[in-house]
């Protein structure tokens, strides 16, 4: 859409049919996983503050599809989609939300603190914007280690008004580190619209003074996200400094599960069917001949089964032993 862009270092990888289907599968897995989480929250089987990303799946899918396993990814309080897209096993994410020992974090972290170092998910945080400087530190480590890893951090539009965001953008550009800032601009922070937080509508405009490649895309179009991110990634991989991708998207559910969602104008059902990133890719992919209706159905079936299996797995996993609390305070104590 808008935004200044330096000449891309290289094109995004060509999209083949298999990749299109993979994007669909990732989004569908996130969607079904989170719909199930919503049910489980009502049933009191998952716990704590649960923020769903239903409606925003295209960002997680479009970004993570192109990352390497060793590219460090950071997220915020709305982290399930990012974890799943980065490769965290569904069943271990589910077990974490249920507080079980086989959860990603052995049940100590919960929804806002998903970490899966094996798949390069280095952290989620309940502090709005808190992982932006931490991701930058990871980018610094890549630079000093002569690695071409690219650090990615997901955050919402609400985080942009937090002081640490600006501090981090300044540092990232000053040091020219390979960090891609991915903003999911859903127009809301908790119960208040962006207009109550700032006069600047577009996050890419907030960072305009910094010499930073930046782009704003339709975040409900997974192909657009994928392509824009692909360009940025190639440039960042080549060491061309930090980048910002702003994805305009839409939060379908309340801020957290169980909130009265009294603040958000619900989209009419047909409008939402127009915008839903999953339905859009299904329509587009079938029309383009990338896959057919059977494949779409199979993706949905497989995702459904994977989610059911994840629930089964999580339910049978025991709660962690209480000793873990003390063992995990310090890395040189207990099994940590």
């Amino acid at each position, binding site marked *: 859409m808008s935004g200044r862009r330096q000449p891309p270092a290289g094109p995004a990888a060509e999209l083949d049919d298999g990749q299109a289907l993979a994007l669909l599968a990732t989004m569908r897995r996130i969607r079904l996983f989170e719909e199930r989480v919503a049910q489980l929250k009502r049933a009191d089987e998952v716990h704590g503050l649960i923020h769903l990303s239903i409606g925003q799946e295209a960002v997680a899918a479009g970004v993570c599809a192109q990352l390497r396993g060793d590219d460090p990814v950071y997220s915020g309080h709305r982290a399930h989609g990012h974890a799943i897209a980065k490769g965290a096993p569904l069943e271990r994410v589910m077990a974490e939300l249920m507080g079980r020992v086989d959860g990603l974090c052995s049940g100590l972290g919960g929804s806002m603190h998903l970490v899966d170092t094996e798949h390069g998910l280095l952290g989620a945080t309940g502090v709005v914007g808190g992982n932006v400087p931490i991701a930058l530190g990871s980018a610094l480590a890549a630079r000093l280690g002569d690695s071409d890893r690219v650090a990615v951090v997901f955050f919402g539009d609400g985080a942009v008004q937090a002081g640490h965001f600006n501090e981090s953008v300044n540092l990232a550009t000053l040091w020219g580190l390979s960090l891609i800032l991915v903003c999911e601009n859903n127009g809301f922070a*908790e119960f208040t619209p962006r207009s109550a937080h700032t006069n600047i509508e577009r996050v890419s405009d907030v960072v305009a003074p910094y010499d930073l490649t930046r782009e704003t895309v339709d975040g409900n179009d997974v192909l657009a996200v994928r392509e824009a991110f692909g360009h940025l990634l190639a440039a960042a991989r080549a060491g061309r400094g930090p980048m910002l991708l702003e994805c305009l998207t839409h939060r379908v559910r309340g801020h957290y599960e169980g909130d009265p969602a009294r603040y958000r104008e619900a989209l009419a059902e047909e409008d939402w069917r127009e915008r839903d990133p999953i339905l859009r890719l299904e329509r587009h992919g079938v029309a383009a001949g990338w896959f057919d209706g059977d494949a779409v159905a199979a993706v949905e079936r497989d995702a459904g089964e994977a989610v059911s299996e994840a629930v089964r797995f999580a339910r049978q996993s025991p709660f962690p032993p209480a000793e873990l*609390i003390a063992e*995990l305070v310090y890395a040189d104590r207990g099994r940590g």
Partner: protein
Amino acid sequence: MRETTYLKEINATLFEAMRGDPRVLVIGEDVAEGGPYTATAGLAEEFGTDRIRNTPISEAAICGVAIGAAQSGLRPVLEIMFIDFITLALDQLVNAAAKAHSMSGGQLRVPMVLRTQGGAGQRGAAQHSQSLESWLAHVPGLKVVMPSRAVDVAGLLSSAIADPNPVVVIESKTLYFRRERVPDEPEPVPIGRARTVREGGDVTIVALSRLVGEALAAADRLAAEGIEAEVIDPRTLVPLDLEAVVESVRRTNRLVVAHEAVAHGGFGAEIAARVQAAAFDHLDAPIERVGAPFAPVPFSPPLEDAYLPGSEDVYVAARTTLGRPAAGS
């Protein structure tokens, strides 16, 4: 008597303060929408968004705004949504608000209130569950209150708004929705006065916030075993009503201090240190402290339950001061 909740009393107190004094304004994230717990619900409708000001997620700046507004004649009530995020506002609170009066030789006053809520128990995990009151109690220039029930939160919030100093009101998320019966015309609650919640001559239990209820439960159990515990709620941490505690300990000769915060470096240490100094010859047993273990709050429900101090811990501590093995535990 009427029925109410802790949360409703906060809301009603804000309404009353804003009706009574045009200088009072409310600042914070989502406050015009009532905030996540509805503490400020309805205010924007009556007083407008000039006086009920939603803010961006900028904890440092909004604390500074409250300080400046207070120095220039307003009476801001700032909300920091979770005490965990007071970390982002501490420079302003500690280096500016707390010190302005002193550093200016008495010229500046900062009559602001910082409302926030702490504590675990809702599976909020390590970053949404902390109890950080001991940090604030270590800062000269701040007053700190920590109400444990509806009448106290009403009275103390109202006193805080009237106070010429920065006052931090630390609410408890787990107390918000509990039903309570309160007098129709409750007495004012001055800052700095403890309350004896239950009288007893065998052991003194000083408890903060949520632990007051736990202490009462422990006291019931002790009473069934023939031990009468005196339960004291300081209500205010700074300035602390030490005399009320010491007076009690002189009679009971035993003290338990209980709070939800991590015991190590918690406010219970300060109470213990002062009481052992002030009532050394009256103590028949070491002062026992009840608090959370030295670890971040775990997410998993059974782990959080195991982590959190509760009536069982208070009971065991009281029995320990009495030198008798706890019956059945």
